[in-house]
């Protein structure tokens, strides 16, 4: 690697992958509970498994974003990280806090956890995805502030590039918007607004900036295409993502008690949200087609292209399916939402973190790319995870459509649990696809341990990482 301090990214990536495995295991447990309701009851009730599944996702993605920032910011800024020690301390703070929180979810009833963590002093618990005890939330803010400080000082003192400034904007936005999670008004309508300003403005706002900057960084490295071309694309994509994403928040206001005009505003603006994702796909393929070098890390190039395609499908297309108010009236909160959620999170955020890990891990271990055999295993893992996620999405979409037809869009709506029995087959198939996903993930991890074949040691220094500096 070019700068010693980039090495702090490594523990972040390892922790991210470890928690990712945990997330998938709890996903499988929950998928089983969809068809066998008392599976692992009372040890792991469904609501706990769900909380662990979604919280682990958010935490490991944050680990991934932080690792990505620690890796790419020194290289973009052309200087060492402001404080590698702070990065290491925050790593352990975040890991211990995250582990304790998950243990809290698993070992004591949620209400008891709220008591133990003195939630009544500043009640913030009990809301989907923001279930963390208040003290954990405070910990997240401290870690985020220290992280943004460390990254921010490095960026501002060094070479300022569009990639690093967009990343910084996204990270600051991530930290600032999380503050809404501390406001928990009694009025449920009010509460929903603030809740969406964390949840939606993260995934359909500032996280997209983080995604775009990491993708641009990897594409610059693996294609050697001029920075100016990539930067112009970034400006256009980001402007569109922010405008459509910010006003598109309105698609969450349809049925929460907000004024009716939001059904128009939310529908129209969120209908545009697929466009920046489509542009990102065109952008990624263009850059790879115009590449000036053959980067030895084929797996990383594949992940980068996969991110663009799957983000467009999952976030763009599957989001659009149910974003118009007249459609959402019937589809709201059905399995169609779950289908969208799975493919969007995988395509946009899981894959971008796997992209940067795939690109940077060999460099952090003193190679330009993994051995051909290791890459072959990794490429298998790409296809297994991606295709199984496509099938998870399709099965959940099937379940969702049948659910909507039997329970919502009919003159004789059937009760919820009766419908759940009728769509059981889809849940079984989803669980099967989930097992394949786990196999893919195990292959991904094992690719880091594959020995043999010719390893490509780093020799040149033309904008690439150099072994001589490490």
């Amino acid at each position, binding site marked *: 690697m070019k700068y010693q301090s980039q090495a702090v990214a490594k523990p972040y990536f390892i922790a991210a992958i470890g928690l990712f495995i945990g997330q998938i295991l709890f996903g499988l447990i929950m998928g089983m509970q969809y068809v066998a309701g008392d599976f692992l009851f009372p040890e792991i009730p469904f609501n706990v498994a769900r909380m662990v599944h979604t919280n682990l996702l958010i935490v490991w993605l944050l680990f991934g974003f932080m690792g990505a920032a620690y890796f790419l910011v020194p290289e973009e800024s052309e200087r060492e990280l402001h404080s590698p020690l702070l990065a290491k301390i925050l790593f352990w703070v975040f890991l211990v806090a995250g582990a304790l929180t998950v243990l809290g979810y698993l070992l004591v009833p949620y209400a008891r956890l709220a008591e133990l963590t003195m939630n009544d002093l500043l009640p913030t618990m009990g809301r989907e995805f923001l279930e963390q005890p208040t003290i954990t939330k405070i910990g997240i803010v401290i870690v985020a502030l220290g992280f943004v400080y460390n990254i921010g000082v490095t960026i501002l003192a060094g070479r300022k590039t569009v990639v690093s400034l967009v990343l910084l904007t996204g990270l600051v936005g991530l930290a600032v918007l999380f503050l809404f999670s501390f406001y928990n008004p009694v009025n449920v309508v009010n509460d929903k607004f603030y809740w969406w300003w964390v949840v939606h403005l993260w995934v359909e706002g500032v996280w997209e900036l983080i995604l775009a900057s990491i993708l641009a960084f990897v594409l610059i490295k693996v294609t050697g295409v001029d920075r100016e071309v990539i930067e112009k694309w970034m400006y256009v994509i980001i*402007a569109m993502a922010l405008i459509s994403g910010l006003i598109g928040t309105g698609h969450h206001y349809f049925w929460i008690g907000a004024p009716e005009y939001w059904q*128009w505003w939310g529908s129209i603006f969120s209908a545009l949200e697929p466009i920046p994702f489509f542009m990102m796909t065109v952008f990624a393929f263009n850059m790879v087609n*115009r590449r000036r070098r053959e980067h030895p890390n084929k797996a990383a190039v594949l992940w980068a292209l996969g991110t663009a395609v799957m983000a467009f499908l999952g976030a763009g297309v599957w989001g659009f399916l149910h974003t118009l108010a007249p459609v959402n009236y019937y589809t709201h909160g059905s399995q169609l939402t779950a289908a969208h959620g799975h493919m969007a999170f995988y395509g946009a955020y899981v894959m971008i973190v796997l992209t940067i890990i795939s690109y940077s891990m060999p460099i952090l271990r003193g190679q330009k790319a993994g051995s051909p055999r290791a890459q072959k295993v990794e490429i298998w893992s790409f296809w297994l995870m991606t295709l199984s996620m496509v099938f998870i999405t399709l099965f959940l979409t099937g379940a969702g459509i049948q659910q909507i037809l039997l329970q919502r869009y009919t003159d004789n709506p059937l009760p919820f649990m009766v419908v759940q029995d009728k769509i059981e087959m889809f849940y079984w198939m989803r669980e099967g696809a989930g097992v394949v996903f786990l196999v893919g993930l195990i292959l991904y991890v094992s690719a880091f341990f594959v020995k043999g074949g010719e390893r490509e040691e780093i020799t040149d220094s033309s904008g690439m990482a150099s072994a001589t500096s490490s």
Partner: protein
Amino acid sequence: METVANPPAATGRQDLPGDFAIWIFIFAELLVFGIFFLAYAFARAGNVELFNEYQQYLDRETGAINTLLLITSSFFVVRAVNAIKRNAVASCVRWLGFAVLSGAVFAGLKLTEFAARHADGITLSTNTFYMFYLSLTFFHFMHVLMGMVILTAVAVKAHRGDYSAANHTGVETGASYWHMVDLVWIVLFPLVYVMH
């Protein structure tokens, strides 16, 4: 895809005036307004009487003046582009100034119109017609402000001598955006204010 792959700035191709990136914006903007207009047509088809009734309370005279203002400002912008192609920097800056001034008068008139509606107690929730009227005109109003910012930035850069007959892409870029703002109003005004 090929045109996307080769922005004129990078390759010297010049099939669109201005920077290629602005055309992506213009396309996206027209798409939003297009969807909004379609939604308007769709909503109106279900409430023709309501739309016709409340349309007559709109201020058509000011709307017509505003239309003339924007068309005239587009003319000024065309003169600015012509001027810079002749290396007449001072003239270019002057024409851009006139265009921004026309935009400012448009914005001022629009604000008095909004103030009058506000005084009548009309909001986005009053009825579907007013929802569309306020949304569309306000959304367009924001674009006029944005266009004025762009034209001002172009004028400042021109004044500093950043543009010339050989290098006038920036002026064309700003001009293209302004024409889009004008074009949208030319559709919006008859659609919302006039057509029964």
